[in-house]
């Protein structure tokens, strides 16, 4: 079943990008929020922790980077067609 296979592919890609990336973003938020100090939902107080804060920012940046790369991948054919720029010269998918 070729359909089942391609649907499975979409499901896997969807889970990785559609649920995995939000989870990474959520982790970033947890790190950033804990790093900023203050009280949690359960009332325990924390001192600010700059390292955790930067970790949070790094996770946000990672998410942004994946998104930009994905859009560039989709634009690939158009960019090659109109401008002759190939952003992914080492990958030949077609």
């Amino acid at each position, binding site marked *: 079943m070729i*359909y089942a296979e*391609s*649907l499975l592919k*979409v*499901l896997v*890609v*969807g*889970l990785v*990008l*559609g*649920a995995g*990336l*939000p*989870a990474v*973003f*959520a*982790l970033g*938020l*947890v790190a*950033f*929020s*804990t790093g*900023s100090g*203050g*009280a*949690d*939902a*359960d009332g325990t107080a924390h001192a600010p922790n700059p390292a955790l804060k930067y970790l949070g920012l790094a996770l946000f940046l990672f998410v942004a980077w994946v*998104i930009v790369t*994905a*859009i560039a*991948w*989709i*634009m690939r*054919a*158009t960019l090659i*067609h*109109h401008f002759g720029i190939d952003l992914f010269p080492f990958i030949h998918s077609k």
Partner: protein
Amino acid sequence: MIILVLLIVTALAFDFTNGFHDTGNAMATSIATGALKPKTAVLLAGVLNLVGAFLSVEVAVTVTTQVLKVQNSKTGQLLPGITPSTGLTIIFAGLIGGILWNLLTWLFGIPSSSSHALFGGLIGAGLAALGSKGVNWTGITQKVLIPAAAAPVIAGIVAAAGTWLVYRITRKVMKKRREDGFRWGQIATASLVALSHGTNDAQKTMGVIALALITTGHLTGNVAKDGLPIWIIFSCALAIGLGTYIGGWRVIRTLGKGLVEIESPQGFAAEASSAAIILSSSAAGMALSTTHVATGSILGSGVGKPGAEVRWAVAGRMLVAWLITLPAAALVGALSFWISNSVSSFSTQLVGDGVIFLILCALSFYIWWRAQKQKVDANNVNADWDSSTNSVVPADVREDATDKAAV
């Protein structure tokens, strides 16, 4: 030539209805959670749809080759037995089917698929004109029907998983910080959905215009290799952008308020799932319905959050609309073709196509007028949902309208 111009105008009109019918896919959750002001949201969505339309042509290729069999897939020549004028009338009638169905579902605030409306219209007109050999059944099954059935399910699973993960991971974070953080995430992911809507849906109209130009011989058949003329891309981008900006408030309301009461982490997870699926399928040239994906995602975000409530009655009504969209639009498409064909049999083709064009204008105006009487706009889009009627029109507006009718 006049017919060709008329057809391109109608195609752009379809693109416009596509835009305002589908604003909600991207922005409904952001509007419902208050992450964006309604007007800001539609402006953002409009601009991003415009930009998105320029990104890729994969889906346009699918439309020109996979729905109707008017051209030889190898040479791009018209198949024997199809004259350019029949070809144009088929496409024209198909567009009319698509537009009317889009407007009708908008009136009832049902987020049905614009793509199915378009394909349904084309298939109906094709069947009426050429019989079943004019329709590319394998193409439709593989590239339209199967994705249509699977997309909402996959989107639902992904969004449910995302929502669950997100709530699980951030359960210790302060509520205010969590809301703020996800509000930003939500704006970002909603923007991505708007962008992907532009790449996926604007291309469908580009594909139709290309199909018409191929039929008349203004364009060679090989869109995949030669790309599309820039004016087609530009005008489609503009039409869908404008349509999105006008905003289909009725559909936005159903998606944002009707299905699930949404919090910003849910909205974020739902939009992330929609964006991932729509973008990956655009890249693969699958003309899947952005509406089905967005609705599936929003439902999934309701299922994935512990304790959230999904209004299955609204979801059920939507499902019915999805099932009948293709055949209903096909019927309108076929009717339009028959009317045009029988009128032109005792006059000219221009008169025949003109007649269905006028019918389209009249019916569109009527639907718009009906909608104006019970208006849903940026001001009352977030009014409380009335679960007793599940009507898209807020309760006070409906009472106003009945009062006026009584006087």
